[in-house]
């Protein structure tokens, strides 16, 4: 008997998976890549390169734009043997992270390769990020102080 899952597994948009790959921790990306059974061949279109990015912000969403600071960034672009092109921009200086993220982006664009990446890698990375965020939120919530004034009679 075939049991249908109650909740359909999420299908990601490109914007979402690029964000997930960029925010994933490098060691998670490495182990996910190692765990990928059959490795796909790819060629570097743009070898991983490290650069600086100026991060700008806007106070409250309406204020004037100001320069928050610069951050290091690594970018890469690869082409799979099957022809898909993937790109990646990741924070930090981990070249291999950018290269693998670009290869995974290319695999996600191929209808044949996508099933091997979407649930096993992208969904797992997204789950790990959600857990980390929840833990951080809980720790922050535990330090919350409620101020109140007792009205003296």
């Amino acid at each position, binding site marked *: 008997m075939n049991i249908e899952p109650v909740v359909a597994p999420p299908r990601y948009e490109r914007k979402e998976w690029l964000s997930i790959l960029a925010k994933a921790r490098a060691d998670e990306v490495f182990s996910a890549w190692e765990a990928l059974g059959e490795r796909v061949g790819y*060629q*570097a*279109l*743009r*070898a991983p*390169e490290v650069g600086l990015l100026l991060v700008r912000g806007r106070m409250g969403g309406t204020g004037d734009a100001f320069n928050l600071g610069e951050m290091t960034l690594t970018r890469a*672009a690869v*082409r799979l043997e099957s*022809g*898909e*092109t993937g*790109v990646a921009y990741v924070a930090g200086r981990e070249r291999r992270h950018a290269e693998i993220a670009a290869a995974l982006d290319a695999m996600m664009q191929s209808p044949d390769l996508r099933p091997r990446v979407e649930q096993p890698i992208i969904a797992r990375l997204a789950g790990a990020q959600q857990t980390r965020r929840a833990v951080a939120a809980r720790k922050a919530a535990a330090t919350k102080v409620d101020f109140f004034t007792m009205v003296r009679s």
Partner: protein
Amino acid sequence: MSPALDLDKIRPAFRDPVRDSQTVFRQVMDAVARPGSQADLGAIVEPPAGLDAAAAAVALTLFDFETTVWLDAVLSGGEAEAWLRFHCGCPLVSDPAKAAFALISDAKAAPALSAFNPGDAKYPDRSTTVIVQVESLDGGRPVTLTGPGIKDSVTVAPKGLPEGFWAQMQDNNSKFQFGVDVVIVSGQTLIATPRSSHIQIQGG
């Protein structure tokens, strides 16, 4: 804002960006220091359609986000433009007088050399470096170069340059310190004829 690039058609650039661009830089520097000498860059990069390998290698080495680049009508809008935008990130300009580099694939339809930026009195080095693709570096009308970097004299005979090109080069040389520097490219080889070279057209 230029339209988004179609990445699927872009070919890779240097296999080893640091070493390859240093190798090409050295060869171009030597070629400019010794006007008229041929430099063979070899199969260092697989160029996009429309560009010669040597022109593509020079572009990867010297073009970046700070150098304005002018492309001729053949190269504009094609595979070569997308390739340059992706790999070099160079701003493209339509006014030849604003270009730091110019890439010419159809020498016969190119604007006059005087249309490019000759530099100014304070910064003569800010002139345009014009890269011209020709059929061959040999077999054309011979001209003799003399001047800095040339022992006695050297004869070059690129084939495929338009009529009157060397007369323009003589004019260019006569305005020194102003003037453009020209790199003549064919396949994997190039020669440089900087503004300092004095040009004598043989039999003319």
